[in-house]
């Protein structure tokens, strides 16, 4: 047992080193003076030179702003649709077409991105030919594509959160005469709020990060940040991308840690309230 404990903890440590060394190395070299990203120029480093270049680059900043806007819209759309789909799958019991909905909602989780990208582009082209909408490709088509693949993740998160609660509270409220919409807003939504929030963050991240699907459905006018970065790093390493990566990692780490702390505190309060309610009822 002890030898196996040693083995698995060794593997865990190794795995974590494997996960973090590349990120840390990228962060360290973002402060390197030399353009040869990987050779540390001790005489002139650390420096904020590449951060300066990053913030001077209209192209990168413009693309970042576009990506944030698309990600916010796509995440919001995905959360609305994914919450509905998760609710239907977890609470509506059996109905005709449930299997198809469940299949459609989870398939984007594993579908290779090139296939999703190609099929959506062909759809947009066909739609434009038949109906004149969407007019050309750009922000709108990227957003629709992102909603479509991100909503699968939201559905899974919301569905599994709902599966963790029995529906006795909802039943009780309905028995007392509350309308279904009221029950959803006053009981179901508050219960699944952490899942909805993490679903939004997840959808935002997936959209903000997507390069393959965006490349298919973006017109010549709209270049998201990952598209710009991808075309830059295809030609080799580029120090301002290291600076960008460092900022992204720091922002994400702060956001994730903050969100986790918030949802833990909320969870604990909920558990306390439930205990108190149960104690009071007796």
């Amino acid at each position: 047992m002890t030898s196996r404990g040693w083995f698995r903890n060794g593997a865990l440590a190794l795995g974590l080193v494997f996960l973090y060394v590349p990120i840390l190395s990228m962060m360290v070299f973002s402060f390197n003076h030399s353009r040869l990203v990987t050779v540390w120029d001790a005489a002139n480093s650390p420096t904020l030179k590449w951060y300066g270049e990053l913030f001077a680059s209209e192209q990168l900043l413009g693309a970042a702003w576009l990506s944030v806007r698309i990600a916010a819209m796509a995440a919001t759309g995905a959360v609305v649709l994914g919450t509905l789909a998760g609710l239907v799958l977890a609470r509506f019991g059996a109905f005709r077409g449930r299997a198809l909905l469940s299949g459609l909602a989870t398939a984007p989780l594993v579908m290779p991105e090139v296939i999703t990208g190609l099929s959506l582009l062909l759809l947009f082209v066909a739609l434009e030919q038949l109906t004149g909408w969407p007019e050309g490709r750009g922000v709108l088509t990227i957003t629709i594509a992102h909603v479509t693949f991100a909503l699968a993740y939201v559905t899974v998160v919301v569905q599994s959160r709902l599966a963790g609660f029995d529906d006795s509270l909802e039943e009780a409220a309905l028995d007392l005469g509350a309308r279904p919409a009221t029950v959803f807003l006053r009981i179901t939504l508050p219960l699944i709020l952490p899942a909805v929030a993490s679903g939004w963050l997840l959808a935002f991240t997936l959209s903000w990060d997507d390069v393959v699907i965006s490349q298919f459905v973006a017109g010549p006018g709209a270049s998201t940040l990952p598209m710009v970065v991808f075309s830059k790093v295809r030609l080799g390493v580029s120090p301002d991308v290291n600076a960008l990566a460092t900022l992204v990692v720091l922002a994400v780490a702060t956001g994730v840690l903050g969100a986790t702390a918030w949802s833990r505190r909320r969870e604990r309060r909920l558990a306390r309230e439930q205990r108190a309610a149960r104690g009071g009822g007796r």
Partner: protein
Amino acid sequence: MARSNQALRQGAGRRLVVAVPYAWLLLFFLVPFLIVLKISFSEARVAMPPYAPLLEWAEEARRLVVTFNVDSYVFLLTDGLYVSTLLYSVQVAAISTLLCLALGYPMAYAIARATPRLRNLYLMLVVLPFWTSFLLRVYAWVGLLKTDGVINNVLTALGLIDAPLTLLYTDFAVYVGIVYSYLPFMILPLYANLEKHDLQLLEAAADLGARPVTSFLRITLPLSLPGVIAGSLLVFIPAVGEYVIPSLLGPTDQLMIGRVLSDEFFANRDWPVASAVAITMLVLLVMPILLFQRLQGRQPGVGR
């Protein structure tokens, strides 16, 4: 979950709640595949605007019955390049999945057996990189694996190697990239499974004289198979069509199928062949995808 809400089962509101996500997924997920399928059976036209073949074909379909053209598929299957690319992609994905499993299984096991406090910390550490940019994390490996990159510099400084190793633009680099990017997808379903095991089974086995290796092989491993399969599918299926990782890290003389699809579409502007590549990939992956969905249906939430 088991009981369904009686009142929610009736009414127009309920129908609307079902219809909205349903309509979205039909229009933006199912219909697009049917269009790809349709175009894969249509004829390629040279010197047309990129979108013309579709309309042409639709018009014809209204007048004629169905114009079934299997040229694209014949071309794919007879041209050795596509077959070998497909096989290579499956091979790369399979090897990467096994490596991911070999690293991810003991990690998931260690997390599942850690104290609750440490467990949350470890899970957070595993998931955190996933939240940062996938593209930027793959790019980080370029700096590590380059001929004058960090790994070669460190190994040279330690005196372990005389000449730099060729690491970047190799199959090895693609394996590393895929394992690195998809590791959380392997660990999470495995963890979700391993965490639920009844440890009394192991104690009973030990009391009856089983050695740890035996009870692992006869109890833990068989019980964790659903997690192993779910994790492996979550890595394998997208890895077959992976585009970014082989483009940044992989060999330039051996492309993967995702790249070939993209090149057919954008560089060669051959929509029927690109569509046929997509359909061929789907046919290849449909069994794993259905298997994944069955597992997903049985254990909600394990996918993430």
